């Protein structure tokens, strides 16, 4: 069979299949059925072609074959590794469409069996030319003398190939290799063919040479030539042995081409591209190393004693049961970053608040309470702003009195709450990735909260980005972020009923009337609530963060009082006006601290909270999970004794209606209408004439009066 295959190869339509055959034989790994030695009956040839056999069956042996110098088909045969000539090489993927290259071999009987197979095959592959076949010289391990015989019978045929093949010797051309083998093997059994082959070797030689020369032409665009490319590609295919290689052959071809060019630029590109990843890894490595400071055991003890670091991993475990997770290693890194925060700042209590997603970067937020007396406050800026506003109103007074004075008075800025109270109870730190430095967010002012309620903007991820909106937000993204954090905390931080209780020290009831109790402490006698109860009834959960009033503060601030203090700077007129106004301002009241969340308002038939058991399959160990519908992304869990809140989301409230920006306010009437500034119509012609007539009449009268007076005097 091999002989026939060889013959076929020589023919124009020689298909790789046949080429494959010897290959297969040589392939120790070939999965085909074992076959006796090479010389097989020709009839069996068609068989092999039809049998599909992956090229992959060819072992590395062809490679070794390639390395030997061209020339010797006999060696080819001889060196065939013990692989039993397996038989039917299935129509091997190697298509050697020598269709165009070699004139059809006269041995029709051989070809008839195979022509179809070959032609089809030729569609696929890159053309490996006869040259290639001849190239792999013969390292070959063609077994069997039969091969040798066949080889000898057609020595000249391969020769032209050999000649040119020397050129490509350097490459490992398996294809060529096995083609040669085929030739060798094919020749053997066939008796007719040798004759034919000898008959037109010259034509074939020339054709082969031409074909090879054509294939070796260097492309005008690159330094490749088709011959080398095809051989590279086939080498790669044979190395990797993908399944159904014919389907992906184009991609393989592209990959080979790419491989040529990237060699020189490799190191440069790779370094640049991955740089940020390496930087981040370095920073994060620093996180891991911080624990290795050799500051003595004392520090260790201190650390353990005053541990204000929350057990983030434990909370993360519970949240994962609820379906909220940031990835285990990401959470661990957050844990380490929090530790870094607590080590560098004097912190009394710390908690991982959550993650706010942004357009370009995200924010990891930590909620922190400083130790007593160790605050770093920057509240002076706000006061300066207030004074400026007052200063402007004074300037108006100094101008000439003739100008009408505007009525408009900027509404009194509501002062922000003191730190540690109300909305500023905790201080928040943000960072974009664990390992990056933590940045402290400024305190929130009531006006920021009021405006934040009216706008809805995505966070970009950069703290200094301006927030462009209507109504204009007083501040940049860090202020907006802080305002949203305050709103979210006030709206969604809940705990099981009884976990916190009011301290018993408060005897001042006045405070209650005004702002409600502010402080609470953990209840040491808290016994836990069964998880089922937590899930079934919302009244078992309470808010432990003060509600923010419409004014923007938690504790009502009466702007009237403050204005009375500032009366010194203002005119009496204004005093009176203010006195009138304060009657209309009513105290704003919100739900007191520790109200159960069953009192929360519904959002248009949607309950504000959704409760779930974390797992229905194993309810004994399940935990209660609370999901907020008002602030999508806010979760709370409790296993009866422990609880935790977290927020992971975009930072916006849910509203069933579409957002509409508020309309601009009506135009103020700045000046009082009066005759001085009221426009009057120009008089019409009749009016003017009658006016003139009246004037003339008056003048006449006056003259007459004078004349009479003169006359009188004369008398």
């Amino acid at each position: 069979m091999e002989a026939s295959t060889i013959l076929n190869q020589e023919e124009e339509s020689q298909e790789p299949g046949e080429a494959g055959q010897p290959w297969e034989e040589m392939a120790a790994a070939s999965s085909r059925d074992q076959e006796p030695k090479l010389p097989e009956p020709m009839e069996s040839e068609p068989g092999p072609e039809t049998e599909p056999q992956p090229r992959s069956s060819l072992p590395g042996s062809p490679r070794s074959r390639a390395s030997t110098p061209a020339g010797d088909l006999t060696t080819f045969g001889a060196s065939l590794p013990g692989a039993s000539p397996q038989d039917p090489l299935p129509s091997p993927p190697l298509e050697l469409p020598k269709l165009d290259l070699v004139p059809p071999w006269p041995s029709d009987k051989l070809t008839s069996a195979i022509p179809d197979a070959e032609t089809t095959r030729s569609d696929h592959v890159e053309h490996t030319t006869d040259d290639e076949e001849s190239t792999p010289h013969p390292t070959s391990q063609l077994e069997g003398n039969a091969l040798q015989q066949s080889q000898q019978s057609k020595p000249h045929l391969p020769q032209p190939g050999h000649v040119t093949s020397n050129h490509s010797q350097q490459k490992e051309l398996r294809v060529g290799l096995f083609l040669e083998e085929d030739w060798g093997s094919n020749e053997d059994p066939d008796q007719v063919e040798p004759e034919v082959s000898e008959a037109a070797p010259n034509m074939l030689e020339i054709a082969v040479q031409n074909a090879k020369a054509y294939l070796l032409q260097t492309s005008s665009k690159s330094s490749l030539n088709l011959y080398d490319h095809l051989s590279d590609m086939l080498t790669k295919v044979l190395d990797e042995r993908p399944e159904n290689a014919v389907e992906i052959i184009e991609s393989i071809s592209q990959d080979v081409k790419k491989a040529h060019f990237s060699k020189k630029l490799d190191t440069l590109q790779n370094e640049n591209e991955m740089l940020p990843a390496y930087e981040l890894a370095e920073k994060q490595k620093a996180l891991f190393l911080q624990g290795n400071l050799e500051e003595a055991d004392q520090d260790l003890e201190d650390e353990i004693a005053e541990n204000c670091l929350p057990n983030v991993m434990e909370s993360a475990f519970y949240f994962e049961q609820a379906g909220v997770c940031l990835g285990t290693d990401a959470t661990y890194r957050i844990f380490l970053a929090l530790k870094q925060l607590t080590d560098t700042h004097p912190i009394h209590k710390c908690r991982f608040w959550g993650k706010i997603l942004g357009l370009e970067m995200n924010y990891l937020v930590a909620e922190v309470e400083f130790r007593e007396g160790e605050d770093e406050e920057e509240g002076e800026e706000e006061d300066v702003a207030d004074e400026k506003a007052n200063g402007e109103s004074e300037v108006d007074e100094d101008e000439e009195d003739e100008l009408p004075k505007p009525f408009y008075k900027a509404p009194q800025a509501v002062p922000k709450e003191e730190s540690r109270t109300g909305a500023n109870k905790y201080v928040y730190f943000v960072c974009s990735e664990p390992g990056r430095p933590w940045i402290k967010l400024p305190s929130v002012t009531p006006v920021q909260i009021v405006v934040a309620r009216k706008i809805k903007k995505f966070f970009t991820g950069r703290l200094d980005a301006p927030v462009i909106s209507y109504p204009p937000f007083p501040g940049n993204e860090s202020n907006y972020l802080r305002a949203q954090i305050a709103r979210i905390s006030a709206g969604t931080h809940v705990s099981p009923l009884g976990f916190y209780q009011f301290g018993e020290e408060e005897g001042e009831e006045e405070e209650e009337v005004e702002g409600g109790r502010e402080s609470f402490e953990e209840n040491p006698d808290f016994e836990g609530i069964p998880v089922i109860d937590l899930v079934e009834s919302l009244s078992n959960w309470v808010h432990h963060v003060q509600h923010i009033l419409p004014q923007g503060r938690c504790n009502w601030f009466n702007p009237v009082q403050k204005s009375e203090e500032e009366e010194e700077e203002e005119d009496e007129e204004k005093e009176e006006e203010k006195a009138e106004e304060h009657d209309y301002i009513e105290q704003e009241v919100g739900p007191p601290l520790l109200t159960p969340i069953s009192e929360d308002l519904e959002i248009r038939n949607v309950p504000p909270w959704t409760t779930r058991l974390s797992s229905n399959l194993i309810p004994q160990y399940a935990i209660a999970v609370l999901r907020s519908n008002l602030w999508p992304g806010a979760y709370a869990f409790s296993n009866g004794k422990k609880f935790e809140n977290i927020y992971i989301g975009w930072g916006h409230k849910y509203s069933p209606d579409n957002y509409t920006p508020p309309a601009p306010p009506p135009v103020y009437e700045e000046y009082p209408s009066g005759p001085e500034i009221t426009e009057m119509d120009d008089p019409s012609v009749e009016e003017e004439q009658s006016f003139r007539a009246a004037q003339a009449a008056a003048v006449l009268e006056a003259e007459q009066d004078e004349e009479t007076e003169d006359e009188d005097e004369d008398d």
Partner: protein
Amino acid sequence: MDSESLLLSLELASGSGQGLSPDRRASLLTSLMLVKRDYRYERVLFWGRILGLVGDYYIAQGLSEDQLAPRKTLYSLNCIEWSLLPPATEEMLLQTSMVNGRFMGDPSHEYEHTELQKVTEADKAFEEEVVVKEETRLVSVVDQIDKAVAMVPRGALFKTPLGPTHVNRTFEGLSLSEAKKLGSYFHFKEATELKNKTLLEKADLDPSLDFMDSLEYDIPKGSWSIQMERGNALVVLRSLLWPGLTFFHAPYTKNYGYIYVGTGEKNIDLPFML
């Protein structure tokens, strides 16, 4: 995300914070395997989770050989038993366009809304109570999200001359510079905008790879947020139009996928928020 690489995909997509609890994960792995066998799908994708008030819907999609053929959608309430959803029709989309608000979580829940219909001949306006089942709403929402934001990276699928689209086995991931561009990602559906491209643009396209619409021309512009996480080792795209859709891809590797975990409502306020 492919059910074959579910665990890895969930880990990579966890940056948005929405994941699955361990028991759901375990149930998914088993049940999706069975779904694949029973329905004879070539690939099963875990599409995501729609959060309802009472219960959540877990959605999966099955693909046949041709990746662009209409996908079959299945839903489950407990990740164990899956039911096939009917394909979305125009009529369904029309009906559900009037329904707003959260999903209940109960597939037989019915939304009622009244429609005013004027019969011009008789000049009478009468109200009609239209009832829409939640299942229908689910079908149309999943379909809308699919058409709007389901995506694949360029090169992950390729089209053969015979017609069907296949998974590209030689896809080795986008390079870093490509990964940062919106134009390297395509909508996972039949192309609708391709013919509108100029001839110059069309000349540069590779017909076997560029046969879907890219994300570049999505309206409104800026409705995608591209971020690199873990340094440059992971690119995450989040849709702002349908908040909750996260697409992840690790450059230079074959890992990519998308998952939707959200309330199933479109973010119509997007232009105000950008």
